[in-house]
């Protein structure tokens, strides 16, 4: 409890004249009576009760002093608040990730977080400054430190939910940098606490964790995959995985929508806190876009649907070679591949192909992309070449690397290979003596490459069985897009083709946005907070991009009891800091009550 107006306690000085008057009052009022002898006789009777007399007499004085005490405290405007009234800097970090849309608390967790933030705001002192940071997979400052309550309230109200995973670190960093200069500060995280370990110690950051949420009942689509049949006559298959985060098993109707049309419903029994798979087969039509939907009213709506975009076109491959018989044969047997051949680089644009095979030459500069480089070394930063190694024997290979899957590199004969030193992120797949890489993989940014530095025709590799296997593995790895699968909240990078300068992106809500850029370069689309299908309208065709939550941490909706920080833990603060409660009304009521009691004592002349 603290006093807003402690100076008002000087009113306690009023007690002095009251006490003075009390003593003055002992000079009693003279009342003439006919005769005092009846009175004196009566007094003699009760003289034995004199101490009680005095006590009773002073009861009125005590009541009056109590009255003054209460009134003075009421004037001092006492408030219940644990924090001192000096200025404080607050940062409210409000989680808006997918799990905050859970309806396990009234309205939703985000709504509850907003309410809690407003409550906290009301508890802040009048000169306190507050900043609002909303965070999902990234942080956004809704308002910098300010004492403008209206602005803060607007900022809190304007926080929109996002179907994204949760990352708190950036928000903590922003908040900490804003409030760090002030001694009296606090960062309040309003979240369900399902995120990474916070870097930095809880004490330094002055963290407070206010958990939001209860026990959810949620089912989610955690994977959707659409597979093209190997033979054209076979049906397409759609695989979906359903996760259930509930203590009782549920039978969930799962709908399959193909190209926007409902094509099937299957009831799937999912055990408690477990998952189940469902498989659909589609003969017609050829699916372009499939959607798997749970017909269920659970706590989180955003993860009840999953989308998948079928790959209809084969892999577009450009082979830049002056002619390589063995390579031609190896590539001819690759499934689902559309190969183009050229020997003149100026005639085609590398950006239009999914994978480019460079045989013996490497253009400089090399744009970002997917490359299989044979018999040449790209001039990438970090690769150092120091002479050559003659007849290098294969010492070892990375058997777990996808490129080396089921390939035996032993007894490989190579005439000579350049002595290369590789940066850390490049993985040597096959190593010769002294760690000289004979094959290595490169993954940096959007570039992915498999490099064979030595000349194929100066080795016996093309004659071996391992070579076509290696090529097939390399293509598999290069086309692999699982890791690049964008998530809600990620920026979509769209590569403009050589003939394009703009694309139009339509979000799941129907909002359209035109993006313009240089031909052959990426444009970035950032408005991806929502799950669903985003369509990218290009010059020649329209592509669909599916953004799915597919995150068990968000879907589980479990509320963390404490936050982990690098320096320790922050336990949940169950109770908010006591909201300011003005007590003067109660004191004024007490004054009234005491006044009434005093009146009663005075007039009823309470029995001894």
């Amino acid at each position, binding site marked *: 409890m603290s006093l807003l107006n402690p100076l008002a306690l000087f009113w306690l000085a009023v007690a002095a004249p009251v006490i003075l008057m009390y003593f003055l*009052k*002992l000079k*009693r*009022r*003279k*009342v*003439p*009576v*006919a*005769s*005092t*002898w*009846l*009175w*004196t*006789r*009566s*007094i003699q*009777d*009760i003289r034995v*009760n004199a101490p009680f*007399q005095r006590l*009773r*007499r002073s009861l009125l004085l005590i009541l009056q002093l109590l009255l003054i005490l209460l009134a003075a405290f009421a004037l001092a405007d006492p408030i219940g608040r644990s924090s001192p009234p000096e200025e404080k800097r607050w940062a409210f970090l409000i989680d808006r990730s997918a799990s905050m849309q859970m309806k396990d608390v009234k309205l939703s967790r985000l709504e509850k977080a907003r309410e809690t933030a407003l409550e906290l705001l009301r508890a802040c002192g009048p000169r306190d400054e507050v900043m609002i940071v909303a965070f999902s997979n990234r942080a956004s400052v809704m308002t910098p430190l300010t004492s403008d309550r209206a602005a803060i309230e607007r900022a809190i109200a304007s926080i929109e939910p996002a179907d994204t995973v949760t990352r708190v670190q950036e928000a903590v960093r922003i908040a900490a940098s804003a409030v760090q200069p002030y001694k009296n500060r606090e960062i309040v995280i309003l979240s369900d606490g399902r995120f990474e370990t916070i870097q930095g110690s809880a004490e330094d950051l002055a963290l407070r964790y206010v958990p939001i949420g209860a026990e959810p009942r949620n089912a989610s689509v955690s994977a959707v995959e659409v597979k093209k049949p190997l033979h054209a006559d076979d049906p397409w298959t759609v695989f979906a995985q359903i996760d259930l985060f509930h203590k009782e098993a549920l039978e969930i109707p799962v709908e399959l929508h193909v190209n926007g049309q409902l094509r099937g419903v299957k009831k799937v029994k999912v055990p408690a806190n477990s998952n189940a798979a469902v498989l659909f087969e589609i003969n017609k039509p050829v699916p372009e876009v499939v959607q798997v939907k749970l017909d269920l009213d659970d706590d989180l709506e955003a993860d009840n649907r999953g989308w998948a975009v079928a790959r209809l076109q084969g892999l577009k491959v450009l082979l830049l070679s002056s002619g390589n018989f063995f390579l031609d044969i190896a590539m001819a047997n690759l499934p689902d591949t559309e190969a183009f051949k050229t020997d003149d680089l100026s005639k085609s644009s590398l950006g239009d192909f999914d994978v480019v095979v460079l045989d013996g030459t490497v253009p400089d500069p090399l744009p970002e992309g997917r490359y299989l480089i044979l018999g040449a070394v790209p001039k990438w930063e970090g690769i150092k070449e120091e002479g050559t190694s003659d007849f290098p024997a294969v010492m070892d290979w990375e058997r777990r690397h996808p490129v080396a899957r089921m390939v035996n590199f032993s007894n490989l004969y190579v005439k000579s290979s350049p002595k290369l030193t590789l940066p850390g992120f490049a993985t040597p797949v096959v190593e010769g003596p002294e760690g000289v890489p004979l094959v290595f993989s490169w993954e940096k940014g959007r570039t992915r490459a498999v490099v064979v530095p030595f000349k194929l025709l100066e080795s016996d590799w093309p004659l071996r069985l391992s070579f076509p296997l290696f090529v097939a593995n390399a293509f598999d790895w290069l086309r692999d897009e699982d890791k690049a699968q964008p998530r809600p909240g990620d920026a979509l990078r769209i590569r403009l083709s050589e003939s394009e300068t703009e694309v139009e992106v339509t979000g799941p809500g129907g909002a359209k946005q035109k993006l313009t850029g240089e031909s052959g370069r990426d444009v970035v689309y950032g408005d991806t907070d929502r799950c669903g299908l985003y369509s990218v309208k290009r010059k020649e065709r329209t592509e669909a991009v599916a953004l799915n939550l597919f995150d068990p941490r968000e879907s589980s909706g479990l509320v963390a009891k404490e936050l982990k920080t690098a320096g320790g833990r922050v336990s949940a603060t169950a109770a908010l800091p006591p909201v300011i409660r003005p007590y003067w009304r109660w004191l004024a009521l007490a004054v009234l009550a005491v006044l009434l009691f005093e009146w009663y004592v*005075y*007039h*009823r*002349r*309470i*029995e*001894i």
Partner: protein
Amino acid sequence: MKRTSSLLDAALISQLDQLELIVRRLFAGRTQGEKLSRRRGTGSEFADYREYAQGDDLRHIDWNVYGRLDRLFLKLFHVEEDLRLSIFLDTSLSMSYGQPPKFQYAKRLAAALAYVALVNLDRVTIEAASESSLEQLPPSRGKQQVWRLLEFLEDLEAQGTTDLHEGVKQFSLRNATPGMKVVISDFLDKQGFQGALKWLLRGGNEVVVIQVLAPDEVKPSIVGDVSLQDCEDGQLTEVSITAGLLKRYDANLKSLVGGLRDYCRTRGMAYFFVQSGQPVERVILDAMRRTGVLR
């Protein structure tokens, strides 16, 4: 009666005109009046027979008895004589207390009783006494004395302290003639009332005791811490007046009043307890008639 007085108003006077004092015993008066006297004489009410003796008035011989018995008997009659009404009025300062003041009320009571006596040709004496003063109205008789009486009463002022014992004793000695003795006081005497009243029992008087108290004395409205000042001797008594104290005061007052009443009742005195707030008419016309002091 044309003139009016603060003590008696016209309405009361017209009612008082109908009343007379009643005595249960016969007294010997000094002059002829309307009350039967103990003395035999020339009244109208038969009293007794007596054998004739030489020198008796022949007019009183009962010739009918002579005719039957052949002896001379005199017929004796009660002489109708006047009654001696003596009123003792306590004029100590304590009587001036109260709202309305007890003294004024006592004067009105005295005036009313004296008026009834005067109208009925009785002899009235009033003594107004305190410890330090004595005012006397000499014996008066006849209706023409009413204004003298009223003036005497109106001029009285309360003064001095109460010494009921000495006052009543002197009053009793000065008015030794038997008759009706009326004492009007508040009886708030620290020495008690017994010593005073016993003087009135001498000589077979008809005694009427009227105790006048102010309503404020019966039910005090004083509250809180006060210093009570005795209006006679100025003595200060500091008290905190509480419900308990008031209860005890009430008990003490009741024992005083009850003691006085019982004392009077056991000694054949008429006792009246009046509060100065009550109308005088009610006391005179109601209570006194009911108890047979007035008719």
